[in-house]
Structures are given as structure tokens and as C-alpha cells.
């Protein structure tokens, strides 16, 4: 299975994961500082900043784009409960 690595900058921890893993699955297990609310892409609580490897996450869905816009997300912000890891990337809580 293809592997990818994600680095949580706030805790300086890198995790090697199977490609396709959602960020939420990893961040909670390693105790990163991204926090979660509804966990289904609606509330915007888990907004994170992708500092490297923006293109190595799955494309945001139309619904995620809408929630990001409603929450006035900056460039390269994503919802950690929605984004899936395809290649190496670095993230931190927004």
C-alpha cells in the first residue's frame, strides 16, 4: 500500500500513514493540537493550515469549500476531518 507522511508542526511529530488516511484519524492519536467539533465537515472547528504539500491532500469537496468560505479560511486552509493524505505534507492548527 502506498505510504505518505504527515508532520504536525505544533508537536513536531511526523507519522507515516497509508495513503488515503484522513488527517483526523492521525492527529487525535498523536495528540496534535487540531481540535474537532462535529467531525463531519459542517462546523469548521478543525480548520488547519497546510504549510507544505498542499497538493498532497485530496481536493476539498464543494461542501468543504463552502464551510471554509463561511469560516473565512485563509489560503491553504483545510478541514482536518475531511482532508485525506495522499503524499507528504505538513500541517498545524489554524
Amino acid at each position, binding site marked *: 500500500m502506498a505510504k505518505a507522511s504527515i508532520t504536525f508542526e505544533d*508537536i513536531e511529530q511526523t507519522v*507515516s500513514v497509508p495513503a488515503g488516511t484522513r488527517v483526523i484519524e492521525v492527529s487525535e492519536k498523536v495528540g496534535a493540537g487540531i481540535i474537532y467539533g462535529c467531525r463531519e465537515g459542517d462546523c469548521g472547528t478543525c480548520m488547519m493550515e497546510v504549510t507544505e504539500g498542499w497538493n498532497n491532500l485530496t481536493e476539498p469537496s464543494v461542501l468543504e469549500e463552502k464551510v471554509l468560505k*463561511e469560516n473565512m479560511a485563509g489560503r491553504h486552509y483545510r478541514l482536518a476531518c475531511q482532508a485525506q493524505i495522499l503524499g507528504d505534507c505538513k500541517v498545524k492548527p489554524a
Partner: protein
Amino acid sequence: MKNDVDVSSHTNAVEFDDGVYWIGALDPSLRTFDIILTTANGTTYNSFLIRGSEGVAIVDTVKENFSDEFFARLESVADYSEIKVIILNHLEPDHTGALPELMRRAPQAKLYISQRATSMLKALLKPAGGQFEYTTVKTDDSVSLGDRTLRFLHTPFLHWPDTQCTYLEELGVLFSGDIFGCHYCDKRLYNDRVGDFRFSFDYYYAHIMRPFKKHVMDALKLIEPLTLKKIAPTHGPILRERPRRYVTHYRELSTSSLSGEVGVTDKSLIVFYMSSYGNTAKMAEEISEGASIVDGVRVSLYDLEGGETDPFVDLIEEADALLFGSPTINGDAVKPVWDLLSSLAVVNLKTKIGGAFGSYGWSGEAVRMIEDRMRGLKMKIPHEGIRVKLIPTDEELEQCRDFGRSIAESLVGKPQKKAVIDFADLA
């Protein structure tokens, strides 16, 4: 003659500034609001009408079952065809209950809401059906009524994500939504006429705004530079007599008392515990010892058996890390721990560090249950908690010291592990 207003006829609007009217509703019999708040004399749902040279604006409406009162007051000063603008500072149902009917009666009116209100608007108006056109606004956007300008201030999370304020520039009136409000019902309407409502004002802040202190401070940065002649919140008295006092009071309430007591740079770590045979207490002491070794961390140790919950809530608000120790009794953590963990809705726990520990007789579920609760409160749990069967051995007490030290090191930014972890190895 004291020149009091009296709105108890339920049909008259009150002109509280030139062409600016209160058209809200009184709810004197309410004793419990939103399940969580009590009120000794009810509340008001304040709604406002502003008349400009080129039309009329309505700011917020009322709870649905008070619609008749709202519409009667509105009709006493304006015709529906004159309404050009409807502004919703906050979409909670006690302020949007009359909205669908208002939109039906004034279909030409344009609706102005904050960006974050859009999904709420749709969810709230579902039962009424239909689509509503709206314009989203942010700080410094404005809408003109000819000789009157309504300017918006983006003040999110006071106390919902959608909240905003609207400022009537020419008269210096701030329509502040729930900010500066309180559940207090008095037909005399003005802060210099109603009874002594200070306790209601502080109680409302403590339960509604306190979890959002940081956002209060952000909002005050926008509000404080304004010329404030009157503040018109959505609940309780209109603040026309020295309104700035209430702004100053909000700043005081949002600033912690004796701030810096723990030290300007020190982090505060609090260990709470309950113990039936002294085993969990012993663990708590060792964890505190371990944490105290780390420079820059101030450790406090408290037995929950010896304290009331409320003062502990204040401590927790200021703390950076919280550890809870509980024995497991009948498969659960003990009640004082849950009492404290269920009293924290009024404080912001996001990003605080948490941890749990405890001694047990045969099953030991308490530690994991406490950790789950803390995760639910959006706290970070950087280290798995320690469970000890009955009396801790010297080796287990050493583990407790290590646990305390690791938590304290997490607080001062010394995470120990740096190697790449494989996802499959994560629990």
C-alpha cells in the same frame, strides 16, 4: 412626574432616539431561559426600527410566540412597504422567531447577516420553507437609509459563531445583539429607570460570554473607539445613561483577576484527585513531585473532597494543564470528578493539556473515561494516563513521577519524541 416609559400595553413602539424605536416584546413570566439560565423577573426580546430618509430598517426580531406584540408595535410606527432593510445581528430563535412572517409581510426588504450566519439561517428557516435572499456583511460594510448609515462590526462567538453588531453612525447607537444584554424584564426599559439589574448583567456575562473571553476582547477593540451614545442589546435594558461604563465593565470581566499570580511566564498545572484508601492520593503526590522538577511550571495539588466546585472552575480557566485522579468504583470515576468535569461549559478549555490517573480494585475504567471526557472538551491528551491496581509499588510510583514530568515538559514545549511514528503502531 418621572417621565417613565411604559410598554405594558403591548402595542406601542417607544422612540428612544430620533427616528429610532424599540419594537420588542416583554416576557415577564419566563424563569428559565435556554434550559441553563435562570431569571428572577423574566426577559425582554428587544427589536429595533430605524427610520431614514430613504426607508426603514428592522434590527432583529423576537421569539416566535411574541410575534403579535412585535408586529403591533412595528405597525404603530411604520408600514411594511417602507421596510427596506432587515438586519439580523444574531440568529438564535429568540431573535428570529418572527422573521419568516416579517419577510412574508415585507417581501421587498433585503436581509443582511454575517458570513457565518448563512448555514444557520437555512437550518432555522427550514420549517417555514422557502428560500430567502440575503447579503453577507463584515466589519465596515454598511447599508444606507439615505440620511442614516448602519455600519456592521464583525464580532463572532458572542455568543454564537454568527454574532455581529450594527452601529447607527449619525446617532452613535450600537445595536449590540446579545453583547451587553441580560435577562431582565422591566417595562421602564432604560438602564436609568429600571430596577437594579446589575446582578442580571453579571450573571448573563458569566454564563453566556465568559467562555468567549478572547472574542470579547477582540470585539471590544472594535467597539471601544466608537462614539457611544446608546447601546441597544437584544435582552434587558437599553443602556442610554453612561453606556461606556458597560463596555469598561466587559473589559474588566474579561480580564482575569490577579492575573500573573502564577507568574508571568510560568505555566500552571493543577492536579485534582479523589482517593478512598490513599492510593490515588499517593499517585497524585508523586505526579506533582515529578511535574515540579520542570522549570517554568507551577504545580497545584487539590483533593476534590475538600472543595466546592465553583472556585475550582475559576482555577481551571486560568490553568494550562489539568490532571484528574480517580479510583474506579463500580466501573466508573467518582461523582466529584464528574461534577467538576460537567461544570466546565462556562470556560474555554481548548488546547489545554489533560491527563488522568487512578488506582483501582479490579477493573479500572475511570482513567480512560476521564480521558475521553477531556478529549470531548477539546483538550489535548499528550500522554496516556496511569492505572495502578490497588497499592502502587515503588516502580509504579516512579512511573507516576515520569508521567508528571512528561506532562510538565509538554507544557513548556519539550516534546520528547521526534522519530517518525508508523500509523500502525498508534493505539
